[in-house]
């Protein structure tokens, strides 16, 4: 009986001590952790919209910048992130549209940023991908993403959609080079970008500003 009592009281004391320690630490770190999680989402949007922020900005700074400069709007099924710098009074600078799809190894998520005319591409970011580093993973690299800058989401005849080409010159206004050796990833990225572009075209959004 004494042994069982000893076991139970030991377990109770140890359990309580651990729980208290962990709850305390959890409470202490909670605000930092939550800010970090939020800032992560926000950082990608700010990056693709070319909103200026300091390289070493803390999570709180990022959230502040986001609140100041970006507003969220829903048009039908689309969620748009509109960058409008209140200080500069230059009107809408850029609009970001999220896209998502299935890559080769896992889900790919990113943002496509368009200029206010909703046709010209300002940039693209991939904030979640599990593609092969050095091959499909190059979609996150600067060289791949820079290709999109200045391209349009429709071809010379006004048909919506971008093309990621293997080989060839990629000279059209809506064409970019695929990643050598990463055909499948390139194809899937093309598909998911076009899905988002079709949504944009379907909503027939015109921003008059």
């Amino acid at each position: 009986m004494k042994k069982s009592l000893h076991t139970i009281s030991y377990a109770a004391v140890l359990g309580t001590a651990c729980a208290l320690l962990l709850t305390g630490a959890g409470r202490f770190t909670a605000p930092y952790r939550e800010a970090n999680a939020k800032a992560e989402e926000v950082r990608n949007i700010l990056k693709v919209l070319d909103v200026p922020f300091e390289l070493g900005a803390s999570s709180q700074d990022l959230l502040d910048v986001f609140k100041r400069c970006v507003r969220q709007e829903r048009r039908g099924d689309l969620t748009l992130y509109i960058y409008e710098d209140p200080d500069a009074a230059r009107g809408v600078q850029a609009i970001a549209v999220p896209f998502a799809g299935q890559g080769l190894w896992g889900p790919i998520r990113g943002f496509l940023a368009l200029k206010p005319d909703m046709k010209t591409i300002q940039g693209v970011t991939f904030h979640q991908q599990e593609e092969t580093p050095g091959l499909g993973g190059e979609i996150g690299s600067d060289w791949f993403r820079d290709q999109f800058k200045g391209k349009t989401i429709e071809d010379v005849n006004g048909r919506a959609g971008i093309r990621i080409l293997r080989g060839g010159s990629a000279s059209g206004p809506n064409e970019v080079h695929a990643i050598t050796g990463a055909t499948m990833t390139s194809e899937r990225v093309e598909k998911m970008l076009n899905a988002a572009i079709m949504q944009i075209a379907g909503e027939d959004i015109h921003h008059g500003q």
Partner: protein
Amino acid sequence: MNETHVLIIVVAVIFTNNILLSNFLGMCSFLACSRQIDTAVGLGSAVTFVMTFTTALNYLIYRHLLLPGGLEHLTFIVFIAVIAGFTQFVEMFVERFTPKLYYALGIFLPLIAVNCAILGAALFMVIRNYTFVQSVGFGFGGGAGWALAIILMAGLRRKMGYSNVPRPFQGVAITMVVTGVMALAFMGFAGMVSIQ
């Protein structure tokens, strides 16, 4: 929410994202038990069984108890407790109904509880936001993939018994290198599963 179809998850975690050959989980018991094919089959089946059920159980507990109650910081401890408890239950079951398997597995049965693949599967399920069905599929596929790897290794180690392995490599070192080559072979499965 994760939109991947559950069958895709199962096939992926067995071949393209094998829980051992891609995510390195479950190495300790893999190294210890891959000498005999019989032991490998037995342990592989046990791990598959435990992984399927514990991942499902852990999903239910996480979604319906930990998250609503704001108790995420207890996730690791709760998951481990569930796995340890379930393994204990399996151990008693195996001892009662299939004593031959019980004696063959010996100490490795309780070691399933600390098999990082099982806890790892539960943690991946949380990170990837799987639904219940996806979690069950992921648990089953994870175990099956692990079992596949350990059975293959047991077969290979039998063959290696006839090879002239250099002294420093004998034992774990050559097993590691062979596992590396196996992992390389499994990379050839990439692209096998296509969606949409």
